[in-house]
């Protein structure tokens, strides 16, 4: 099935197609009502056929085949992703067993920027954070894969749970209480409430990092 609004170019072609479609119907109707109806039926059938026979856009699947003994851990990469406490928590979970690590980096943004689609900077920052966290995990012998997520951290985790599939545990780090927007907004509680996945909350105090 084709999506007629998948990008700006496709939407522009839809405008041109609409001009042709309705122009021919109007001309047909001007000549004769029945001719207009016939043109409408033929063009509509053609349009439906064109839309349905288009190349199917398959959903992207990140799911990887892993054996049943492997734990799949989702790490949320926010500003505290480089904290030593978080790395220790991940090590503790991986230690002595097989584990696959997935990192989601929410494209954190202000509300105003979000509503005016000003997300380029947020996505670049999220990509940089993701790259840093993947490199740090790799350097510590913990290979991982990841992706940029939604601006809303809860939504980003939900998307990642569905995208990666079969996640056994979420590891989330925040600043200490009083300095954490996520704690103030109840993000951790919201995640615990929404997801039926064990969630480990790690507090990272970057000001006390060596």
């Amino acid at each position, binding site marked *: 099935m084709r999506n007629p609004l998948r990008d700006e170019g496709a939407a*522009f072609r839809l405008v041109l197609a609409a001009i042709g479609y309705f122009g021919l119907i109007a001309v047909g109707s001007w000549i004769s009502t029945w001719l207009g109806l016939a043109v409408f039926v033929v063009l509509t059938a053609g349009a439906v056929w064109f839309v349905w026979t288009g190349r199917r856009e398959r959903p992207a699947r990140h799911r990887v085949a892993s054996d049943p003994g492997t734990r799949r851990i989702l790490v949320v990469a926010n500003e505290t992703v480089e904290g030593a406490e978080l790395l220790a928590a991940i090590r503790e979970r991986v230690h002595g067993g097989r584990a696959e690590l997935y990192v989601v980096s929410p494209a954190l943004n202000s509300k105003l920027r979000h509503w005016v689609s000003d997300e380029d900077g947020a996505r670049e920052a999220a990509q940089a954070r993701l790259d840093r966290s993947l490199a740090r995990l790799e350097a510590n012998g913990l290979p991982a894969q990841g992706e940029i997520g939604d601006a809303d951290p809860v939504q980003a985790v939900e998307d990642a749970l569905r995208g990666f599939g079969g996640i*056994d545990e979420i590891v989330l780090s925040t600043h200490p209480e009083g300095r954490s927007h996520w704690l103030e907004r109840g993000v951790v509680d919201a995640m615990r409430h929404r997801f039926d996945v064990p969630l480990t909350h790690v507090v990272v105090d970057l000001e006390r990092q060596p």
Partner: protein
Amino acid sequence: MTAHAHEHHGPPAANQSSRIAPTVLGMLLFIASEAMLFGSFFAALFFARVVNPAAPGHWPPPPFHFPVFVAGVNTCILVTSSFTMHWSVQSIRRNDRAGMKAGVTLTILLGLAFLLTQAIEYAHVGFNTGDGAFASTFFGLTGLHGAHVFIGLSLLTFAAVRAFRGHYSPEHYHGLEIPGIYWHFVDVMWIVVYTTVYLL
């Protein structure tokens, strides 16, 4: 060790049996919701027209008439704005910032011209909402579309401000492309409204 050593937690895997990607599905649902919104107004228009004793020979009922020529000019304005919008997006894809800014500015000006022309049309159309079902449906449909144009212009204004502040690049132009898609959609809806209300 039990047989359930690896107990699964978490939400069930997303149902993808429809084989439609979530992004496509989201856009289709948006189109469907808009189609239903406009569809209810079209249903009212068609009903009013069918039950009109003089239909289909005389529509709108005499002595009223729709300003087909003025609306036709307005259609040309809006269709042209789709071309300038397309030019704007294509320009930033080629890293032509001047073209991008000119395109989005022209699109806004053409959109404003469309709304202004529609306001003048309303002032001189010669009937009002109380003059019959045909008038109610006319103002309802064209007004609903006008509201969509206003939303599109708001989105384009945000995009233009960002364009003039140096945002967007050939790799990152979502903030321009998404209002562009909406603008083209609004344009398509006007072609439907113009054909159905004014021409047929």
